[in-house]
């Protein structure tokens, strides 16, 4: 702390944090039981005890630009053991929810994602774009004969929508990440430059789900998250492979069911479906263990779920040869996929960016995570 600077608590921020899911924050009396149970804690960082008092005082800068907040994988052990009924895991989740808004470039998109009122507008954009594209491509007439989605939306049309969306997500992600990174550098006097070992370590941790495996209170989430994670990885790979088929091999969709790429895609979709179903069920059945589910959590989980379900349904309708169902479902599927991709740095999806960045930051500064 700079010695000439006055510390100024922020009442409004405390109130905001409470609204965002951290209503228990003031209950903490700093006993540090949570520190004893949390895996993220380091000897020189009494986490999350210190974050709790920063939150009580409304010291948002310290909370937003603090890698530890992102290293927390919300296992819920701290909340289970807190003797005072404060729920650090919920408070940290609330901090992260507010962080999505804080880091967002452009900022208004961050705000829109935390506000239920803006949800319709957020969905209206891809719906309108895709509608226009459909009108442009085929005058909104469902193609006759065998169901082939690329006849409804030719790949070039898809690419001309989704590649810019992905680029937009990429650029805004980089800008948002930069904001986080420089904030972390400002707040902790480490060197702050990423090093290769840290990157490698972070990737390894993520792939192995090492932290989730250590959770006690919310142990089942390990399975759920693992399924979703690898399901999505498979789907992401599938998308890229399909592009390669098209541009390099000239092979078109739909692929035969026995095609390895098709198999990969289907397996990924089923894994992701199982994972999200499990997580939703857990959140509904055992809120004490999963922690609070905020608006941002629900929007993300449900969008994800909707994208997977519509994807599976689109494929099923195609195989069952019911065009009246297939094309509208496919259209809806694309809306959800657009939502997920284009808004990535603004929705809870962005946790994968910030968490990875924080892991690398912490690793690069000599702190194992």
């Amino acid at each position, binding site marked *: *702390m700079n*010695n*000439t*600077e*006055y*510390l100024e*608590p922020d*009442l409004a921020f*405390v*109130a905001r944090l*409470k609204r965002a899911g951290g209503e228990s924050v*003031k*209950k*903490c*009396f*700093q006993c540090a039981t949570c520190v004893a149970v949390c895996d993220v804690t380091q000897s020189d960082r009494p986490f999350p*005890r*210190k974050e709790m*008092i*920063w939150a*009580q*005082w409304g*010291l948002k800068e310290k909370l937003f630009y603090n890698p530890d907040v992102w290293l927390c994988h919300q296992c819920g052990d701290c909340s289970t053991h807190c003797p*005072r009924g404060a729920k650090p895991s919920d408070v940290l989740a609330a901090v992260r929810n507010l962080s999505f808004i804080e880091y967002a470039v452009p900022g208004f998109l961050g705000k829109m994602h935390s506000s239920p009122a803006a949800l319709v507008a957020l969905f209206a954009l891809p719906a309108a774009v895709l509608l226009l594209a459909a009108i442009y491509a085929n005058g909104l007439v469902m193609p006759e004969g065998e169901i082939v989605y690329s006849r409804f939306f030719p790949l070039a049309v898809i690419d001309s929508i989704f590649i810019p969306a992905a680029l937009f997500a990429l650029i805004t992600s980089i800008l948002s990440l930069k904001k986080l990174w420089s904030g972390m550098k400002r707040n902790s006097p480490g060197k702050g430059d990423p090093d290769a070992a840290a990157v490698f370590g972070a990737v390894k941790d993520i792939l192995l789900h090492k932290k989730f495996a250590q959770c006690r209170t919310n142990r089942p989430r390990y399975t759920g998250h693992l399924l979703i994670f690898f399901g999505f990885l498979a789907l992401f790979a599938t998308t890229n492979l399909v592009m390669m088929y098209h541009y390099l091999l000239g092979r078109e969709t739909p692929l035969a069911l026995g095609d390895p790429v098709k198999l990969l895609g289907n397996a990924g979709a089923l894994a992701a479906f199982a994972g999200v179903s499990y997580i939703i069920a857990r959140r509904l059945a055992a809120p004490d263990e999963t922690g609070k589910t905020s608006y941002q959590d629900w929007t993300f989980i449900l969008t994800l779920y909707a994208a997977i379900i519509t994807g599976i349904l689109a494929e099923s309708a195609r195989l069952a040869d019911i065009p009246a169902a297939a094309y509208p479902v496919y259209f809806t599927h694309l809306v959800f996929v657009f939502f997920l991709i284009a808004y990535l740095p603004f929705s809870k999806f962005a946790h994968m960016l910030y968490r990875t960045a924080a892991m690398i930051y912490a690793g690069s500064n000599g702190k194992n995570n």
Partner: protein
Amino acid sequence: MTQVNAPRVYICTGCDIGASVDVDKLCKIPAEFGVPQAKRHPFLCGEEGLQYLRKEVAEGAGRILIAACSGRVYADRFDFGKDVMVERTALREALWVSTPNDPDTQLLAEDYLKMGIVKLQKSEKPEPYIHQLDDTILVVGGGITGMTAALAATDAGKRVRLVEKEAVLGGFVRKLKRRFPIDGTGNPVETNIVAMAEEVKNHPAVALHLSSEVVSISGQPGEFDVRIKTPEGEIAVRAGAIVQATGFRPYDISKLGHLGGGTVDNVITSARFEEIAASGRIRRPSDSKEPSSVAFIQCAGSRDEKHLPYCSSFCCMTSLKQARYIREQNPDAKVYIFYRDMRTPGKYELFYKQMQDDDGVFMTKGDVVSVAGVDGGVEIVVNNTLLGGTIRVKADMAVLAVGMESAAKNGGALHLAYRQGPELPELNYGFPDSHFVCFPYETRRTGIYAAGAVRHPMDAAQSETDAAGAALKAIQCITLAAAGKSAHPRSGDTSYPDIAFERCTQCKRCTEECPYGMYDEDAKGTPQPNPLRCRRCGTCMGACPQRIISFKNYSVDMFSAMIKAIGVPGEEENRPRVLILACENDSMPAFEMAAKLRLKLSPHIRVIGLRCLGSMNMVWLNDAFAKGLDGVLLFGCKFGDEYQCHNMKGSELASERLSKLEETLGRMSLEPERVRFVPIAIDDAYALPGIIGDFMKVIERVGPNPFKEFAD
């Protein structure tokens, strides 16, 4: 000695006694003392045994020695009315720690029986000191404690005289805006002090003196002569017992210069802040601005060796309560609380939780290093905070949560005309408190009880309980005194010390050493007894070098005779003898516990229980060594800061006397190792075999007492 008063001895053979010693041989012992042969009974404490004893009493037995179990058990069963003197010899316990049917065990049983007979022979029935006594209770101080004590005493049917130096009743509590939450809801409540003051004022059994002070107090319980300075002039009145409820002073803020105390306008005590809050809107002193941020500094001068080394227990709650005032006045205000620990015991925790939950209250543990005036407000620097490192905070004003100093510190309230000083002796830090376990609600001035924050730091709710307790103690003391009986710890004892003044050398040992200040002195230094102040500890008896202080049933001569009754086998027999003088309050129960546990102790010890180790007279050590005993152990309570002595000073005084022992031993060419003081606590039973065993080894090493040969 008339025939009627001749001791009779009854030996019980139950509880393994009969199976452990040759009782027939024991029965013949009394004859050596001119006492009829002892009678034996298989089960003295049973109905049949008691019938038998009652019959003996009816047939003229007026002094009875019951050689059975310890006097600490069945006292009620072996009570045959006030005209029968009963002495108990703890044969059973002595045998339980010994090997049955061993020659040493037989010798041990014989010695205990002999000592019992001698003790009974030297005992007289005490004649209680009965005077016509006044039973008014004088309450000094009219705050919440004093008023509660006054009302409690009147409820119990006593008359009360209340002296208050201010012109109104109510004391500190009257200045409060609200009290701590005591109802469990967690909300501070209005005080009821005005209504209480009215009740006291209008109470027919209370004589009230406002704007008055006590000028002097002399006399003793039931006969206190009190002079009071009232606005109408000085008056002289009588009182039976006294409750001192003079409260506390907030610690002097000007001693806390590093916290801005006395130098920065906007740094005030919580007491001052409370007054401001009680009188309307809260405004800071410098410019009457309503503060939008206030910093509370907890433990300001408390728990600090340089200031008050203790916790005053009320200031955490006070600051939380005052934080509420500020937050109520201005919902945007910020309140900082810098604490070392938040101490909010019991239901107070609910209020702490409530205030924690308030968004505008910011707390952290930390060491406040400075409070300084800056830009019309204050700047506070706090080290080692929970937020991490040092922080610097600005506020409109700061409140120092200062602790309590006893109003009795530096005296001035009672003006006792006592030899040992004008005020109640303090326990520590200037509080006239007493040992919490051994001496609850007590003081060292019989009949005078301190209550409330004058006694130790406490809040209003605790003070009310304390006041009721003190009122009851005062009533109890008067009641006992009226019957010539002692108050705690020997409650009910009717003996009291007699001085054979002809031989008094005015050495002042008794007047100085009595833990209760019983003796005053005349100009020449002759002790002037006030028997109703006496707690019968016997310390004066132990102190008196002339050995002229004695009780009817407890005297120097009695114990000398008992020591001399111990049989000392010749050197060649290799049977050392060690005398243990043990305090009855803790060490004797420890022995009894050892007996219940059937721990084995050396058969060569002879234990004599004393009212208090303070009553140990040095002549007994002379007697013991002259008789040929090989060593003496003194078992008493721990003394010093954590003392456990029932009479506060007894064991300490005894061990001080030992410092003069070397001279005595030197004269007799005896080794100093032969005498040892050991602090014993009531739960030390398991330690006894080790302590005694070690000492026996020392005795073995230094060898037999050479005086054995000369002893008869």
